[in-house]
């Protein structure tokens, strides 16, 4: 694994769009070439080297390239966008769209991320040591095809609208979440170790949600069926099992009606 380190030296006055900070784009380039890559501040186009100190050459392939991002990147968007392989470590906190549209590889953020992280994720791994913002692992506006593969692990709290239109993959939030969990989901798995507020599983067609903590207000479209014991995200526990959203359309599989599943720890 070859490592390229980029260290923020010139915090932008506005925000920086760093869609070129990705192992796929860095692959095959030297530090000098990487420093020449474009970044965008508003309607101006600058070079990565104008804002970051760049050291280290990338490997020939994305899979063998690791990027370490140092310094204050709280105003940098799109880190790891569309990456397919390789690794990124952000030592601090980043702004919006971390790992958006990623299909592979691994991103670790030691701090927090803002909205739209892992939009429409298709594979790979995203680890947030701190908190995530709204729309984590959600679909892009208007698209009924959301996160379909990959894993997300947030060690802190997450915002609202996580996993919207999810069709596959897995998301684990160690802390609490805001409203609207897995809205319109048609697959996938969301595990919340902390507490949820309300609007959990609204309009869900399929998929599984596990809440270890409390839900302030249950959706009326979820009906209790039984209590089960399951091992989830490394913890074995008893869960009240609800099916829903009863109000939504339902698919059938082999003649049986399919529902989404909501499990709340007993």
């Amino acid at each position, binding site marked *: 694994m070859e490592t390229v380190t980029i260290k923020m030296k010139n915090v932008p006055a506005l925000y920086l769009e760093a869609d070129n900070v990705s192992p796929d784009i860095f692959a095959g380039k030297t530090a000098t070439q990487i420093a020449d890559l474009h970044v965008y501040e508003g309607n101006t186009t600058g070079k990565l080297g104008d804002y970051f100190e760049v050291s280290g050459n990338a490997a020939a392939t994305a899979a063998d390239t690791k990027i370490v991002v140092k310094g204050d990147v709280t105003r940098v968007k799109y880190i790891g966008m569309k990456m397919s392989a390789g690794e990124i470590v952000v030592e601090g906190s980043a702004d919006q769209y971390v790992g958006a549209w990623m299909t592979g590889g691994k991103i670790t953020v030691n701090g927090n991320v803002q909205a739209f992280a892992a939009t429409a994720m298709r594979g790979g791994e995203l680890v947030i040591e701190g908190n995530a913002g709204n729309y984590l692992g959600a679909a*892009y506006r*208007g*698209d009924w095809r959301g996160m379909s593969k990959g894993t997300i692990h947030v060690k802190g709290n997450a915002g609202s609208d996580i996993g919207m239109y999810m069709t596959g993959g897995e998301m684990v939030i160690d802390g609490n979440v805001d409203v609207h969990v897995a809205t319109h989901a048609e697959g996938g798995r969301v595990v919340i170790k902390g507490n949820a507020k309300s609007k959990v599983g609204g309009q869900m067609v399929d998929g599984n949600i596990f809440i270890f903590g409390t839900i302030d207000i249950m959706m009326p479209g979820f009906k209790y069926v039984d209590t089960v014991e399951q091992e989830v995200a490394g913890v074995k526990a008893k869960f009240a099992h609800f099916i829903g959203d009863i109000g939504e*359309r339902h698919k059938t599989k082999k003649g049986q009606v399919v529902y989404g599943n909501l499990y709340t720890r007993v």
Partner: protein
Amino acid sequence: MSEYIIKNGHVFDPVQGIKGDKKDISIKDGKIVDKVSSSAKVIDARDKTVMAGAVEIHAHIAGPKVNLGRIYRPEDKLFSCTPTHGMERMGGGASIPTTFKTGYEYAKMGYTTAMEAAMPPLFSRHVHEEIRDTPIIDEGAFPVFGNNWFVMEYLKNGEVENTAAYIAWLLRATKGYAVKVVNPGGTEAWHWGLNCLSVNDPVPYFDITPAEIIKGLIEANEYLGLPHSMHIHPNNLGNPGNYTTTLDTLKIAQGMQPKNKFGREQVMHLTHTQFHSYGGDSWGNFESKAKEVMDYINKNKNITVDTGNVTLDETTTMTADGPFEHHLTGLNHLKWANVDVELETAAGVVPYIYSPNISVCAIQWAIGLELALYAKDPMRCFITTDHPNAGPFTRYPRVIKWLMSKKARETQINAFKHKDKVLSQTGIGAMDREISLYEIAAMTRAGPARSLGLTAICGGLKPGMDADVVVYNLNPEKPVGNPDQIETAFSRAAHVFKSGVEVVKDGEIVSSGNKRTLWVNAKVNDNPQVMRDITEKFLKYYSVTQNNYEALGHTFVPNPYALDVDATT
């Protein structure tokens, strides 16, 4: 004004019967002329194909349901936008392009005239605003009449003259071009959640059948002598077995004669015929009836059709056949938008993915091509995709490739997951015909222009016509090694002239031209009854006033071109 001479190109012009001969085309003051002076700018068309600008007879490119499609599909623009560059404003939209992109993309393919297929009259200002903002190409729009309260009431009483007077009034009020009929009667039934699936199903309350509406509108159209014929999207679109409804619809025109001063020879134009050529009685035994439909079309010369080819893309369906769209969302569960328009019509929008892995989609693809391949008279069978319903119009070059190359068709057939079903349920496998360039010229230029009544100005390269001329990078004397070369050539023209102004050069926009809005100004005898009925309906039932209904000039139709019709007696 500028003079040009396009030299040494291989000209294909069905209007003059030129089948690839090397011929110079001269342009002066916006028109094709016999000759030009020596100071004319020379365009070298050696080893290239020269045709008139293409004419789009049916596409959904301007108006409220098109824009509803844009608004509700941000994902249609994700990662596919084109930036501002050169002469071009920025553009976006894979299946529903923005207006600037629409104009540029048509022009780059050599299209110079396009018809917006369905204009809800109450929204005519919106249609015209979008037409105004679509650069380069001349456009017209078809107001819809088949579910209109005035039309249904008059035709129930057999009042053809009153219907004609209303049509003339509405064409003027909306700056419309032709009599469009969509799912006659069925869309009014849809305002109550119902439909008319056969030509004999009576419309709730109005108690008139689609057959009566169709017949009456043909008669009114011929009474007026309009440039285009009645243009119809028949009942029962999209359902297995619907070819019988299509034949029932076509038979209504039997024995009816066209009457007009524009060279039009048909009394009915049947649109996106692919969607109306289905056999079987379920999706399981779904099959092609393209042969049956084209047998009828081939024998009945007072009808023109367009194909509605499926292009195997993710696209967006949008149509005034409101109940069909509701049915479609029930099938694919994708987002459904609907607008019922008071007294007039409705519209529905639903995204659709024509996946090559789904046998029904593959069969639909085959049906669209079969229709053109069965057509005996290319001057009566035109190429469309009912954009964006069966696919984006930017795929026309691909459709042309499939029609001109059996090898290209085979490559696609072999790529289908359910190839065996395509071969068993359609006749595409056995069809060897390869449409020629001359026939393509008929199907995309001369034919549609004649059907629309526009032969005086476009669709051909005869001196006196507008100088809408296209040069393609395709050498008709060289056999095509790779069929993809056909698609490439038709995607980006070497030169496009619109009304004598060079608008595209080497596939890039070099001028926005001076587009016109084509509309039909029909004069009829004074008709106090109809005027009174109009006033009464505005007072009682419309939600706008009569004086606020008409799309007046200024910003809506900045450069009008009216085709005048005198239907007074």
